[in-house]
């Protein structure tokens, strides 16, 4: 028996007990973790512990509580850095979410390198948060936004990368894992090609960090962003990592308290990285709880998480494929899916699918998934998405399948 045999047995679920919402709602099949994950009790405990034992404004005070709050933030930075393979905890910038992190890059870094006629190259499968900020900065700087498209297996090939990334490219930005197709993009090769042309590589890790081992040193990207709430941490905290020289050279974005070195009536100088980018009181409790979330994930081990999620994707895709009225979207190979599995029910609108599934205690998402350009390119207006995490099990998938059969018979029955 392999050491992971128990984790790949989908009839067994030792994880739900760790997650109060799931434990309290045994009838619920929560299949929307790609939108926001559930939080284990250890994360909620940590958040509360912060407020009950070390609550003070970090960075500001000279008394013990404040020092503890400051240390909570520093330890979180160190752990987050280790977790994503960042060489230096000082380059971990606290943000509100992935969206804010990517906006920081678009507002503060992009104008340093973009001139009229330059190009920003992204993929068609970007979430709006890694797309609209680039549209906006291209508008402001006169640069052009260029798209890479996947092949029929949802793969952005090296050929496609080389066709789109070239001497005019200054920034390449891509999701490491797509929130609709579930595929992993080869951001390492993208980064390599970008660097051949002296362009910079921005990776949106919102959907990769919860599902695969991330090593930004190996990817060799220049910026990396993710959200705490998708990796079992609290809402309201996100992370931007940036290469130190770049963060150092960038002007600040938001200004105000804590991010200054000194202020006079008509001017100011800035604190060093990362504080330079952290205006105002940071969510120290959120950072502390995110630290606990990462500890929890590490305690399960990536081997176990990846093995179980692979099994879930396999079972889910097998079951959905067996339903004649389901049209799967994205790669046919379950191994290519990391979390997200999108589909449509023939002749039934995704909103109706989601509402009817909800009546059957199955929570999925329906709509454009903040990826309208991708959906338009695929020729659909909206779709359904079931997304899995290690805390899902066979019963969740079975309830989904059962619910989908009801949907079909309601709309096409008798």
């Amino acid at each position, binding site marked *: 028996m392999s050491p992971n045999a128990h984790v790949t047995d989908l009839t067994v679920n030792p994880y739900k007990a760790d997650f109060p919402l799931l434990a309290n709602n045994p009838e619920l099949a929560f299949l929307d973790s790609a939108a926001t994950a559930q939080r284990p009790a250890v994360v909620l405990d940590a958040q509360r512990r912060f407020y009950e034992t070390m609550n003070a404004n970090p960075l500001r005070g000279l008394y013990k509580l404040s020092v503890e709050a400051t240390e909570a933030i520093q330890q979180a930075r160190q752990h987050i850095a280790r977790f994503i393979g960042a060489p230096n905890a000082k380059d971990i910038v606290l943000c509100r979410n992935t969206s804010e992190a990517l906006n920081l890059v678009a507002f503060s870094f992009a104008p340093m390198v973009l001139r009229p006629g330059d190009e920003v190259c992204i993929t068609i499968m970007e979430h709006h948060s890694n797309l609209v900020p680039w549209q906006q900065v291209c508008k402001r700087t006169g640069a052009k936004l260029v798209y890479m498209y996947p092949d029929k297996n949802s793969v952005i090939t090296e050929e496609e990368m080389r066709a789109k990334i070239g001497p005019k490219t200054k920034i390449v930005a891509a999701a490491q894992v797509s929130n609709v197709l579930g595929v992993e993009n080869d951001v390492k090769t993208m980064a390599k090609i970008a660097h051949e042309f002296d362009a910079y590589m921005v990776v949106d890790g919102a959907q990769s960090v919860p599902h695969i081992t991330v090593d930004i040193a190996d990817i060799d990207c220049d910026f990396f962003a993710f959200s705490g709430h998708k990796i079992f941490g609290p809402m309201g905290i996100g992370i931007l990592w940036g290469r130190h020289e770049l963060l150092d050279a960038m002007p600040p974005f938001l200004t105000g308290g804590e991010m200054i070195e000194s202020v006079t009536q008509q001017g100011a100088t800035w604190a060093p990285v990362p504080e330079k980018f952290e205006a105002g009181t940071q969510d120290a409790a959120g950072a502390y709880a995110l630290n606990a979330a990462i500890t929890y994930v590490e305690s399960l081990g990536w081997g176990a998480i990846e093995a179980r999620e692979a099994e879930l994707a396999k079972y889910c895709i097998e079951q959905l494929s067996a339903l004649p009225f389901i049209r799967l979207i994205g790669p046919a190979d379950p191994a290519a899916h990391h979390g997200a599995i999108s589909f449509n029910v023939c002749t039934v609108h995704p909103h109706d699918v989601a*509402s009817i599934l909800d009546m059957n205690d199955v929570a999925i998402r329906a*709509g454009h998934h903040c990826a*309208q350009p991708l959906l338009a390119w695929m020729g659909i*207006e909206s779709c359904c998405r079931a997304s899995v995490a290690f805390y899902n099990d066979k019963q969740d998938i079975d309830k989904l399948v059962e619910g989908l059969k009801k949907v079909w018979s309601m709309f096409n029955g008798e």
Partner: protein
Amino acid sequence: MGNSIYSAALMDHNAHPDNKYDLQDATYSHDGINPSCGDEMTLKLKVNDGVIEKAAFTGHGCAVSQASADIMADLIEGETVEEARRLSGLFLGMIQGKELSDQDREDLDEAAELESISRMPARVKCAELAWRTLDGILDENGE
């Protein structure tokens, strides 16, 4: 699916939307969009002397939005612009959770059957789409 929003009437209007076609001799046309899902609808009216003689829609959307549009078109055909506005106000109020009087319920006719959607906030925008588009078309054309 006892008290579900998917009533027989709704399912029927969705499956057979009599008013879903491209109205050729329309006097007014207006596009509506539901940004939360990207659903779009084009509403066309033929208004003559302050009376809505014909109403029809095209586009794509869920059963709730399609049925709501079809029911609305049935309801406003033959009504004055003024009355259509009043009915739209009644409907949008109902969907936002306002109690209907018996008279209101009678006036809204089949549309009153969509009342249960007011208890499904996520679907309220679907049910509203056609009616908001109606308000838009009337505003735009100074009716």
